[in-house]
């Protein structure tokens, strides 16, 4: 009798919990579905599904290789990636190009080196150990050509974030809700959703572009839409065979792939970290359980009678 009432109560509690979470889920979904502007005309980037999210998250090699192609053909024309080396492209846990591919790729770049034994600087083909070379010799030259220094891309995915505010940020630290992917969420939203026509009556100065993901200063950004360089205004790709692995090229696909690639560039040890982390948690969990059992054994009876010491 007593058991059945407890069971009923439990079921009631579970049902109300589920209803509550469904409601919360529905509200957050409706927020997500509306990639719409908030009161300040700002798009708050939404959480995307990433293969590298979660305890068992791993990068999608094919996606990283596609993202690398976007980075190589488009982004790196202007952006630097000074912390990224060629060799990392063939290391485990990344796009995992073959060593030969990376060697051939590096050799297509001319690297300034020296001085040699005559005291002269010289150029040589790139080697896998070289850092990613930049189009511009220095910041000043980038600024004079582009009007601003584009941010270095190697850490961009960790240097950008989405502030969800109190109390949501607390959940981002909890198991099952954890979120270290705000950077790629932000980059995806910036290039896929942010570029749009400015509000009526607003004049965008030449050399600037309207992007609703950019905070402050009237949502203006100096980077022209990178997708507009690859697609026409109707969303048709300039090069339908851009991806060599047969993946159809769409604006959404390009934005996702390059965001994932930038996350890897910023956090190349993510897979190693998560794999080791799981093992560490399992070990510590077993160890803690054993210690607890020993502790119980040691303390057994201690509070029943005066200790015999």
């Amino acid at each position, binding site marked *: 009798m007593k058991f059945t009432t407890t069971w009923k109560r439990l079921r009631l509690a579970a049902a109300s919990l589920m209803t509550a979470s469904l409601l919360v889920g529905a509200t957050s979904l409706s927020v997500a579905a509306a990639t719409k502007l908030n009161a300040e005309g700002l798009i708050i980037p939404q959480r995307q599904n990433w293969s590298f999210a979660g305890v068992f998250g791993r990068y999608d090699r094919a996606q990283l290789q596609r993202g690398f192609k976007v980075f190589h053909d488009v982004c790196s024309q202007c952006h630097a990636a000074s912390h990224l080396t060629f060799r990392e492209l063939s290391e485990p846990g990344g796009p995992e190009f073959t060593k030969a591919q990376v060697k051939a790729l590096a050799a297509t770049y001319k690297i300034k080196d020296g001085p040699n034994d005559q005291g002269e600087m010289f150029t040589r083909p790139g080697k896998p150990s070289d850092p990613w070379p930049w189009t511009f010799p220095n910041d000043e030259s980038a600024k004079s050509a582009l009007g601003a220094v584009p941010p270095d891309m190697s*850490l961009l995915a960790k240097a950008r974030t989405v502030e969800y505010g109190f109390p949501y940020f607390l959940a981002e630290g909890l*198991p099952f809700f954890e979120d270290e992917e705000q950077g790629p969420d932000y980059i995806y939203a910036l290039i896929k959703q942010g570029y749009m026509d400015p509000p009526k009556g607003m004049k965008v100065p030449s050399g600037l572009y309207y992007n609703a993901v950019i905070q402050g200063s009237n949502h203006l950004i100096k980077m022209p839409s990178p997708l507009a360089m690859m697609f026409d205004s109707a969303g048709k790709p300039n090069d339908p065979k851009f991806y060599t692995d047969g993946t159809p090229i769409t604006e959404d696909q390009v934005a996702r792939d390059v965001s994932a690639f930038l996350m890897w560039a910023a956090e190349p040890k993510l897979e*190693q970290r998560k794999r080791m982390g799981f093992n560490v948690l399992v070990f510590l969990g077993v160890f803690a359980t054993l210690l607890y059992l020993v502790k119980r054994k040691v303390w057994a009876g*201690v509070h*029943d009678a005066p*200790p015999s010491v």
Partner: protein
Amino acid sequence: MSGPSTYVPKSAFGRWFEQRLPIMGLMHSSFIVFPNPRNLNYFWTFGGILSFMLVAQILTGVTLAMHYVPDARLAFNSVEHIMRDVNYGWLLRYMHANGATMFFLAVYIHMLRGLYYGSYKAPREVLWLLGVIIFLLMMATAFMGYVLPWGQMSFWGATVITNLFSAIPVFGNYVTAWLWGGFSVGDPTLNRFFSLHYLLPFMIAGVVILHIWALHVPGSNNPAGVEPKSSKDTLPFHPYFTIKDGFAVVVFMIFFAWFVFFVPNFFGHADNYNPANPLVTPQEIVPEWYFLPYYAILRSIPYKLPGVLTMFASIAVFAFLPWLDTSRVRSGTYRPVFKVFFWVFVLCGIGLGYIGSQRVSDATILAGRLLLTYYFVFFLVILPLLGLLETPRQVPASISAAVLGAKGAAAAMPRGVGAEPSVKG
């Protein structure tokens, strides 16, 4: 550290050595047979957890220093070199950065436990004061450590905090220039912060030894707040507390490991992955979470010097706690009114932290001032008056009475009969 040792070494070499340097006897009396109150709950394991964190921080820190370069042009790159090229460098750095957070989390629990159970009261005032010194050293160490990666938040955090000293009348600007080693935060500042960041943890370790020494003279306080009266009230440190502390440390490590391996940048700030740039001020300069309550206090005062003084006073007030709390009853368990004010104080601290993380507006300024008022009223008015006005509940006659209940106090009770184990989990 509690009187002459009864330790007799088993081996001949041990006896020979003990006559010349009785360090094994010291360890034996301090960590083997040392009598601890038998009713300690799990809040008393945070001393062990903090010792573990100090050792973990020093070990990871010394290893990181082998690869880090304290040079304004190279520091940021050297940290990235650690993350990418050094074997398990990412692990060392994430452990060290999250370790600071865990250290402060544990020290705040440790301090609030002391506050709740009146652990600072006679004869433990010096023990408490040494703790306050450790806390100050920790804050200085953590602040300087956050500057070392030389990201945007490092640089601008250092600028804001060192600028506080310019509030000193007349000499302020000289003092800040002296701290910087120049006319702004720069290479000399980074170098001296690195040097001090390496030095201070060893000073902390020294004061921790004094802290443990001062603990082992009167022994631990306990949840009942009455001193042990007989051997019935205590248990030897080993095996009872070594196993209990060991279990607590491993549980804490699980919590620590979660952040290191799965959300390593949760407590960090994204802007610190942008290299320091003296020409670009970040939209918001926010300190690490453990400094947010003090930051809120600083920003609640509209004038610079009084703001700085109030902020320092909010930390210094801890040193006067043993004399501000006038209650003769130690443990908050037996102080029904104190309990309420205590928990409001905890919420007030969390509230100040929240205000410190927010953009300044009229509402946050007002809320910050209200919370700040309660913070000081709690220490300077409530604690002194409460000791005189509050009627505490009956304090147990002894620790064994508290553990075993009124019946169990009769020592002749047979084993297995009597109250349930009452150790709080």
